[in-house]
Structure formats: C-alpha cells, structure tokens
C-alpha cells in the first residue's frame, strides 16, 4: 500500500511539474545577459531590459553582473572557456575582444540585417578574420583633457592646440594657486590616459606605427613620437603641476577636484561623463573637454575609443532570442532607451540614432572632432590587437617619478611581447 501511495504521489508531482513548467516554457524564453556592475552600465542595462521586454513579451531577460576591470576579464574568459557564459554579454571591443578567441567562442553576427546600419570603425573593432561579432553598446568615447571652464574664464585662458600652449596654461593656473593637472594613481588605470590619448599625435607623425608595432618592428621606446606620451606624463610631474596627493587620490576624487574648481585639467576618458552626471550634476555645465595637444597646432585631433560590444556566446541555447536583444540594442529604440537613463555621452555608432539637442558642454566639445573635416583617430588598441597588460603600472611609475619615461617605455615594449606571443602573432 505504501509503495503504491508513493508512486501515485510521484506521478501527481510529475504531472504538476509538467503542468506548471510546460506551457510557460512554450510561451516565454528566458535569456541571460551579463553586464558590468559599474554604476554607469547597470542602470542603463536595466532600462534597456524593461523596454525590450515590453516590445518582446515572449522573451524574459535576466541580468547578471560582473566586476569591471581585469577581474571582469577573468570572469569573461573563464566562463567562455568552460561554456558557462550567459547568452548575451557586454565586453570591450578592440584588443581585449580579440583575446576572447571570437571565432570559437562567439556567434558570428556578420549577416544580421541591422549590421548595415553600424559604423565601420566599430565593425573593425569587433571584427576578427573578416567576420563581425558584436553590436555597439553605448556611444563613441574619446581620451583627452577634461577642463574646468570657470577657471579658464577667470584666468582668461584659451583652449590649447599644442603641448606648449597647454604647459603655458598650466603655469598660469599654478600661479593662481590652483592645481594645473589632476592625477589619481590610487586607481592605476587612470594613469594611462596621457599615453593612450597621445595616439592621434603619434599616428599623425608616424602613420605606419600601428602596423609596424603589431608586426614587432616599431617600439615605444625607439619611436620618439611614441615615447612622447610617456614624456608628457613625466613633464607634468617634474614641472610641479600635479596635485600633491596624486598617489592616494582616486578617480572619484579627481572628478570632484575638477568639478569643484580645485584643479583645472584632468586627463581622462569621456566615460567619466557618466560619473560626473551621477555625482557632480550641478557642476556638469562648468566642465569642458579638449583633445590631448600635440606639437602641431594645425593638426590638432582626437583619439577615439569605441564603446563596449554586445556579443552572443556560442554556447548559448537561445541564440534566436539573444539575437533579438542584440538587434534591439543596435536600433534607434535601443539608443533612446539608453539615452533616457544615462543620456548621450558622445556620437552614436548606430547610423539611425541621433543625439538629443541639449547635450552638456563636455559632450558638445567632442562633436566637432567627429564632424566632416574633423580630425580623429582610433586609439591604438582598436587598430592593433596588442596592448600590454602592465601599462598602468608603468605609467604610475613614470607619473610618480619612480622611473624615467624612456625606461618605462622600454619595459612596456617587453610587456607587449608577452601579449603578442600569447596571441600567436607573427614576428615575435
């Protein structure tokens, strides 16, 4: 008796289970999306998910988060290698993307209908062996100098077009008792900006640098125009233009000093606009932006970064639903959805998306470089697959005076070799 009772219970349970799960599964597909948990990314993703689910009632999107930076790199690479990646994930384009072994781990999106509306620069940044694997998640970014417009107004300064003018401005700012250049090495990644943002000036002088560098022929230490970025980092410190607490200040401190008018310049990527909006929204109008100045006033241009890409893992069991989410991101609706939460921080890479009229000055300052006739170049990490992982340590050393620029650059060249070998590039 007991046995039959148990069996019938099991049968009922099984039926109940099928009854609950069966039809629901037929109606609704659930896909997972792994985003970075940074305050700039997560709210935008939540907004997009809400809008996407409203437009696609058959699909439910579960968000998963990961840390940003190199800890996030670990998670992405490990989950891809163990085939446990979320269906959709967002991750850097450019050299970091290429290290993911896209041909093996990602779904080829070259043939998707929306791909025709994507900017070619971006396609290059998420392309591998002639195939394209990602959609742009966010707007174009740039590296350069954030500056405090109020300080410029008060001291009667002009936006510098050459490094000489920049240093002359710094001198006046210092005499006025303010910090000319903010540096924040407690967040080591912020120390790289003066080197990376100098790439427009580098490629203007040595147009073949990216190709030669990838082939192992050109080196930072042996190319004066490339070494210049490291030297600029050294020069601002030697001239005494850097805030005294540079070693312990963090990224958020840097933005605060800039917004409060304690410091005049902060070399930074325009991703910082989001953080400014969140924390210094009252002073957002006081902040402007200019490209990192080089030697030639007539050839003053901007080093541009591509946004992170949105990819589909090859291990996904819901590729059709995942493709719909990616297509949504790559449409005007996706851009609007993002705009509503985080606002536009630069020009879009989806052709049908347009910027709202009322952008803050720091975004408006960016736009002329992107216009026809404007001068811009993609950052080195988008035109070459190699970026040495220890750059931020070397730039902290050079910027803190632990090591001179030439030595830091030479050690960085050695660091790059490992990346090139790991990728199996010829010539190394």
């Amino acid at each position: 008796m007991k046995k039959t009772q148990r069996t019938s219970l099991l049968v009922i349970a099984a039926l109940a289970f099928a009854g609950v799960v069966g039809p629901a599964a037929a109606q609704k597909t659930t896909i997972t999306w792994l985003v970075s948990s940074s305050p700039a990314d997560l709210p935008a993703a939540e907004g997009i998910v809400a809008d996407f689910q409203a437009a696609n009632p058959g699909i439910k999107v579960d968000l998963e988060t990961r840390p940003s930076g190199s800890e996030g790199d670990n998670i992405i690479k490990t989950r891809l290698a163990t085939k446990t990646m979320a269906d959709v994930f967002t991750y850097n384009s450019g050299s970091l993307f290429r290290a993911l072994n896209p041909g093996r781990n990602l779904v080829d999106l070259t043939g998707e209908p929306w791909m025709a509306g994507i900017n070619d620069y971006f396609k290059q940044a998420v392309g591998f062996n002639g195939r394209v694997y990602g959609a742009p998640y966010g707007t174009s970014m740039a590296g350069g100098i954030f500056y405090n417009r109020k300080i410029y107004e008060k001291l009667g300064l002009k936006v510098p077009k050459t490094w000489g003018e920049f240093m002359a401005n710094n001198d006046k700012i210092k005499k006025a008792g303010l910090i000319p250049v903010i540096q924040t090495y407690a967040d080591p990644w912020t120390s790289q900006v003066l080197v990376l943002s100098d790439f427009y000036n580098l490629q203007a002088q040595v147009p073949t640098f990216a190709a030669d560098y990838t082939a192992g022929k050109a080196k930072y230490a042996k190319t004066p125009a490339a070494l210049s970025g490291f030297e600029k980092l050294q020069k601002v410190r030697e001239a005494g233009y850097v805030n005294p607490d540079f070693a312990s200040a963090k990224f958020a401190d840097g933005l605060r000093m800039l917004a409060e008018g304690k410091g005049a310049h902060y070399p930074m990527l325009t991703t910082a606009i989001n953080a400014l909006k969140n924390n210094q929204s009252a002073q957002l109008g006081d902040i402007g932006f200019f490209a990192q100045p080089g030697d030639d006033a007539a050839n003053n241009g901007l080093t541009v970064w591509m946004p992170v890409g949105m990819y589909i893992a090859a291990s996904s069991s819901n590729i059709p639903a995942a493709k719909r989410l990616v297509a949504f991101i790559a449409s005007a609706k996706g851009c609007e959805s993002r705009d509503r939460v985080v606002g536009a921080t630069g020009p879009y890479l989806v052709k049908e998306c347009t910027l709202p009229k009322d952008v803050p000055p720091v975004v408006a300052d960016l736009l002329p470089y992107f216009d026809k006739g404007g001068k811009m170049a993609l950052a080195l990490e988008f035109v070459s697959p190699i970026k040495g992982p220890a750059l931020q340590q070397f730039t902290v050393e050079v910027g803190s005076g632990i090591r001179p620029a030439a030595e830091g650059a030479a050690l960085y060249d050695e660091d790059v070799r490992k990346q090139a070998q790991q990728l199996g590039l010829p010539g190394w």
Partner: protein
Amino acid sequence: MTAAASHPTPTSAVKVGGKKRKSPYPGWFYLPAAVIYGVFFLLPTFSSAYYSLTRWTLDEATFIGLENFAQFLREPFLVQGLINTLTFAVVTSGMKVVLGLALGVLLTSEIVARGWLRSVIFFPVLVSTIGVGITFTVLMHPTEGMINHALAAVGIPGPAWLTNPKLALLSVALVDVWKGVGLATIIFIAGMAAIPVDYYEAARIDGASKFEQFLHVTLPLCRPATVTVITLSFIGGLKSFDLVWTMTKGGPGFSSDVIASVIYKQYQAGFYGLSTAGNVVLFILIAGLAVPLSMFLNRKEGHE
C-alpha cells in the same frame, strides 16, 4: 606537521620498545583518502607541471618547452618580487616571533584581565583578511587616514604608508603582523604552559632573576613553539597574496609586488601557461626554502 615532529621524544619512546605491530585495519581503508588526494591534489599538481610548458588559452595548449620559465625569469619585476617576497617573509616571521614571545610571556604571567587580553590579541586572526586589508587601507590613507590624524595630533607628520614606494611593502607587513601575531602568541602560550614549574622553582632557588629565568628556562624550552611559529609564518609570508593584493595591488607601480601577485597579474592578463609556470617556480621556491629551514630548526632541537 612541524608541531607533531617537534615533540618526538615521548611518543617515539613507546614505539621503539616493541616491534612494529601489524595494523588491525586493512590497507584499502586508505583508498577514499587516496582517491580524494589524487583527484584534488596530485592531478592538478601534475597537470600544472604540464601546462607550465605550454602556451595555454584554456581552449588549447601549444607545447613550447621551457619558454614560459625563461619568460617568467626574464620578467623585469620578478627579481624585485623575489626580494619583496623574502623581505616580507623574514620581516613578518621575525616580528611574529619577537612579539608573539613577548606577548606570550606577558599573557602567561599573573596579570589583570589575562583571559580578556588573550582574546583581544587573538581576535584579529579570526577576521577576514580582505576585511582587514580594506580597513587598514582606509586607516593608512596619507591625508585622511586615522593613523596619520593621530600622529598629527601629537605633532608627528605621518608618512604615506601605502603610497610611498619605499614604505608600501613594510606597511603591508605590519598589518600582516597585527593580524597574525595572535596565532603566534597562542602557540607560545601553549609551549610555555607545557614547561614544568619545577624548572622555575629550581632556578629561583639557585638565585636566578626573572630575566635569567626567561633566558635560561623559558626560551630554550620554548624551542618547539618557536620552530612552529617560524616555519608557519615563514611559509605564510612566502605565499602571502591576499593582504598585498587588497591593500596595494602590488603598487605603487611594482614596488610592493610579491611573487604571488606577479603570478596573479599574469593570470589576469590571460597568460595562463606563463602564470602556471610562475606557480611551479613559487612551489619550488617555497619547498626549497621551507624544507631545509624546517629540517635545520628541528635538527638543532634534537641536540638538546
């Protein structure tokens, strides 16, 4: 291991007397333990020895011979990391011995609130290393940290604990000592409690002062405890990683990098073969230093 090895006299005396008796339990009782040990310890050890000879992307491994080791030993910061690792191990184990011994003497003597003090000293051992690291990073902030505020209140300009490249490693070592000294103290207290009171009595009758009692009775008879503390904290110091990573990430620049953090950075960069080779090097280094150290310390003890 060392704790057991350091008390050989009483147990071995019993065994030496009779012939080795056959165990009543069959040998295959070892099997479950052997399987677990094989799968979770031996297999990873041998497979890492293999992967250290490859360029590994997690998907595929290309055999490249000893190139990873050559590359790892060419790392510009490996030498610095090595020196830092040894410095860290020597400084922390030295300070733990000295402070642990002093605290052990203090806490075995008749003082007020002895039990409470013992708990206070031991408490940091129980706290998560990451939590300790984050807390001290805040306390050691050069301008806003509580330590420098306190120093400023008595007129001492506090140093930039974690951001001065010359100080960063030592600051982390200090925190490690703060966190680990409780364990050393407990080991010393146990060691001292095992010293028979008769020796002290005899020494007192011979007219030995308190200090002489410490020097001629406590110190030599505490040797097993000292050996344990040195070995444990030296090995702990050699493979220290979590505190260094939480507090400085090896920075500023590379100034507080230890071998384990150099390896971790290679791993983060996706150089899996290279970082595995680094781990093999670290394994050999720890074994190469700790085994002779432990043998040396234990042999000395045997002479008594």
